[in-house]
């Protein structure tokens, strides 16, 4: 009961904060236009005929879904963490009787909800303009929500770990940028992964990025068979365990090294 009340307060506070930053959030949503640019490029290429089984409308559906997934899993926690650790702003957070992790979780989830509210109309217009459709079946939708939850948890914990590296190095934020490039290109936000050469695709199965973008989208579009869906969820679970474990390890050891500026 106490936990529930705490959770409720956390979300109420972060919702109030988020409402304060409406205008910048609108701009952040608009900065996620890369998938829409790629949609136009691939649709133009597909005019000459289908490419690897993709018609123009298939590209549209794929990239509109990517656009939505990116908005729902928006994450910048490594930037805030590394700044707070470097500048010693972490101290007030440590005085609270709650792991700062949960404050960041509440903040990111409310902002993601706000992103979705703004992004959904954009996507609807995109679907109407391109004539693309999503086979919205109950099974797909439920699995999609699960896949999004998995993708969000992996990405959030991975970047949380990157941010915690600031306890040891001032390159944490730079490492975050590097990972972002990999996430965009190897996750499937520029090229649908099944258009990469087979060797590249095989290599991508061993990296987390495909499970952050490409996997939820393929689940939503109903492209995967039962066993492939199951395998995807198992791999997501493994990445979650790995990154959550890493995060705990980095947090415990990092705190011992932390000494705030001026302390």
């Amino acid at each position, binding site marked *: 009961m106490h936990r529930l009340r705490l959770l409720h307060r956390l979300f109420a506070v972060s919702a109030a904060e988020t409402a304060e*930053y409406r*205008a*910048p959030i609108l*701009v*952040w949503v*608009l*900065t*996620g*236009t*890369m998938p829409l*640019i790629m949609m*136009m*490029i691939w*649709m*133009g*290429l597909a005019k*000459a005929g289908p*490419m*690897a089984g993709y018609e123009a409308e298939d590209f549209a559906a794929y990239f509109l879904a990517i656009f939505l997934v990116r908005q729902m899993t928006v994450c910048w926690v490594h930037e805030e963490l590394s700044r707070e650790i470097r500048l010693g702003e972490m101290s007030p957070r440590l005085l609270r009787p709650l792991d700062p992790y949960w404050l960041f979780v509440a903040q990111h989830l409310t902002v993601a909800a706000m992103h979705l509210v703004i992004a959904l109309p954009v996507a609807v217009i995109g679907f109407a303009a391109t004539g693309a459709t999503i086979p919205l079946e109950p099974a797909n939708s439920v699995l999609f929500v699960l896949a999004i939850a998995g993708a969000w948890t992996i990405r959030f914990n991975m970047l949380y770990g990157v941010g915690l590296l600031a306890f040891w*190095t*001032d*390159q944490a934020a*730079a*490492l975050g*940028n*590097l990972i972002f*490039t*990999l996430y*965009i*290109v190897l996750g499937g936000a*520029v*090229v649908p992964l099944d*258009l*990469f*050469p087979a060797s*590249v695709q095989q290599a991508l199965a061993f990296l987390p990025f495909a499970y952050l973008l490409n996997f939820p989208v393929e689940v939503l579009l109903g492209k995967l068979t039962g066993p492939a869906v199951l395998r995807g969820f198992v791999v997501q679970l493994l990445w979650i365990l790995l990154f959550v474990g890493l995060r705990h390890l980095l947090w415990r050891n990092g705190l011992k090294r932390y000494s705030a500026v001026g302390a």
Partner: protein
Amino acid sequence: MTRYLRLLRIFLVNSLQLEMEYRANFAMDALNALLAFGSGLLVLYAIFEHAESIGGWSFPQALALLGVFMILEGFIELVLYPNLNSLPEYIRKGDMDFMLLKPVSAQFLVSFRYIRLWKLPELATGVALLGYAMAALNTLTPATVALTVVLLVSAATIVYAIWCMLTTTAFWLVKVENLPEFFYSIFSAGRFPVSAFPTWARFALTFIVPIAFVTTVPASAAAGRLDGAMAAGSLLVAALALLLSHGLWRLAVASYTSASS
């Protein structure tokens, strides 16, 4: 004019001293440049595995375009990010007062004070790639190179002017400091020739957010497929954008009331 050149030299030397303090950044930035190059190449390979051309551009021509894109991206990281992006903070904290008190153009000071030299690897990679593509296309003649360089300078001027106008809005919209990020995301459309976009987007990328002049036009010159009207247009747009940015800047400074008053 010579005073500004001398100042620029002092800023450069000072930036170098600052950068030497953070030598580890160089490794990271070089790695980032390598990654930008690798991922750009991977995307082109994926496209050309399934298509003969993109918007009428062959593979080596698309390589030249990627080179131009990386040069401009390098310019943004080298000059625009470390300077103009601090403007909203100067305004919020009142540091803008000190800029206005200096006996030089405050716009110049806010735009070129810090040059993040460790970002050079990406720009250098872009230059090398562009040179390689031009050699492959047999366009490596002094005339083409000169024209390409002129159009690259023009492109950088356009990007600078747009970026400057977007950050200048911070004088009025104190809370919205991420408008340049919005432009940056549209700038990524410059990885592809404008001819690869649908008609309405081609129009928007030429006349509303003139990305066409930023990457397609210099790359066209390098690939030896430039049409003269677009080259003249680039210079015109650059001059116009620069004038506009300066006008907006003066308007903004006139309405500046400092942070605490």
